[in-house]
């Protein structure tokens, strides 16, 4: 299952639990009585929540994308520069407007099942570099002026990927897109 669906499922379950608890307590407010063993139940509630937090942190932090294929050698480096309102993608570094114009609009193909290192930057404002396959967001990284963000990624599916800008960058932000071929 893709991450977005997993997250939505967990969220939906928690939504139902929270709403159910609040409605049960709301309905109980028509009666008179006392909440028994308040301190003990509060302590149990807190320690369950504390344990859950520790568990989630322990499991999820090592899966952070900064460590993806960190010890491997990338098969290919791809340089991405963003500039209002287009991307330029090249096998060579893009540092200037001339570099940008030279590779603007060029179609890049990267190999399937190999580690690709995207070196992403911007020549003007903050942009977002995101990879979509069939409308599903696979990964992203910010394109920030003055900095290079490195994202290592292995494509397990061939085909054409849509690249969308995901950081609001100005009036034509919604139209800022490009394509990437994986074969």
């Amino acid at each position, binding site marked *: 299952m893709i*991450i977005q669906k997993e997250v939505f499922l967990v969220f939906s379950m928690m939504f139902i639990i929270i709403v159910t608890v609040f409605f049960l*307590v709301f309905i109980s*407010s028509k009666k008179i009585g006392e*909440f028994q063993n308040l301190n003990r139940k509060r302590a149990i509630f807190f320690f369950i929540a504390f344990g859950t937090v520790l568990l*989630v942190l322990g499991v999820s932090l090592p899966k*952070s994308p900064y460590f993806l294929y960190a010890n491997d050698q990338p098969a290919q480096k791809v340089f991405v520069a963003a500039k209002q309102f287009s991307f330029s993608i090249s096998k060579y570094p893009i540092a200037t407007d001339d570099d940008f114009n030279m590779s603007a609009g060029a179609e890049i193909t990267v190999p399937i099942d190999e580690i690709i290192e995207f070196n992403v930057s911007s020549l003007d404002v903050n942009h977002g570099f995101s990879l*979509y396959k069939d409308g599903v967001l696979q990964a992203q990284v910010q394109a920030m002026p003055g900095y290079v963000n490195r994202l290592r990624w292995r494509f397990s599916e061939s085909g054409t990927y849509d690249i969308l800008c*995901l950081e609001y*960058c100005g009036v034509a932000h919604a139209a800022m897109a490009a394509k990437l071929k994986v074969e």
Partner: protein
Amino acid sequence: MKTFDKKFTLLWLITILIVFLVAIAFGITMRMEQAEMVDVGPLNFYILMTSHGLLMAGVWFVAGMAGIQYILSRYFEVPRWGSVVAYACTLAGVVVLLISTFLTKFHAGWYFLYPLPFYAKGADSGPVLFLIAIAILGAGWLLWSLVLLVTILRKYTVTQALAWHHITGRPGPAVSPFILISFVSLIGVTACLLAAVVLVILYFIELARSGTMSNDPLLMKNLTFFFGHTLVNEMLYLGLAVLYELFPKMAGKPAYKTSWYVAISWNATLLIVLFAYFHHLYMDFAQPVAFQFIGQVMSWFAPLPAACVTIFSVLTTVYRSNMKWSLASLLYFFGVMFWAVGGVGAILDAVIANNLVLHNTQWVPAHFHTYNLLGNVFFSLAFASWFADEYGSEKMAPSMVKVIFSLLVIGGTGFVIAFYLGGALSVPRRVDMYSETVDEGISLAKMAVVFASLYLVGMIMYTVDFTKRCAGQLFS
């Protein structure tokens, strides 16, 4: 003094409600543009987006502050001028903001991520006017929070206001949770407004040097989110401080007391909230990994003290309380519920591995609209309802309570569900139109328009009823 406090609080509340209605109308127009129901064009869409974001963040921040100011005035003599200056600055700031967006076409978004203000500026005067608006708002609010902090410190020492003696068991004056939470939140507010001051100064230096120097984008991004994230969090806590004061009485229970765990919780919150903002920069891989980890750890620990203590307290207060529900108590109780729901959405997004596919999708407005529109706004509306019940000409009619509450809950819930679905379907946020890749966004925007309109109708009814019951007090 007391009459002034009542009248000025009333003035704040009426102003807030009117600005809120305008900001909702901006938001609905944006969703209608995304739904292809109107054609305002991209520039106007982003002008609306910039205005909507800043008005919403500002209006609910001042709502929290007005609530704190009023309840504090029941404890101490609170200087009037802090609130008066803040009111004048808020009005002036909003006017300059709207001039910068609608007249000079500035459209860089409410958190104006550097260096976008120099590119999405409209006329050359756009960024200058916008930064002046931010400076006016920031100065007025900073002054107001300092006045309130000093007011508390006239009666308590810093350690007493932080309720440390409730943790150590040493003798000292009883500090109510309201004072503790207000003090903690005002420190946070002061810190983030200082960051805004630094941010604006750096912008002005760059403007003054006209192209001969530039700021560091990563530093500016950190400052921006330290300011924006912390402000939005603290304004929620301001609303909670008032809840701690008013809610137990609504349920016919004794006032909440500051126990050792309440004191520890809010002291921990003070620190945790200041470091959680790093989660906004997860996708900036150039940021040191240690900061990213601090962001996730703090984001996950943030709900533990404040939310667990508050949620548990509210649930046990209501449990078999035989309480008579009013609009105020309903809004407080279900506001806490939606705050918890929005919190779950937020911490799921705060897992770095999840953020890789949720960042800047509609999952983000989904969770922040849940705990703002249905949480924080409910807290302030609850305060306003309580205020109207106390001082208005009459109580709200029970049928009106049912209609308004249903419209707000059904409208608000449907509206945020459209965003959650959008996040799950990878639909981007902050776009005026959806490309073929993410065209599910169009039907979700239509759904959002319908539900947001219900919410708007509920708010119009609320505002009319509130004004009818209370406006007479303003001129009495």
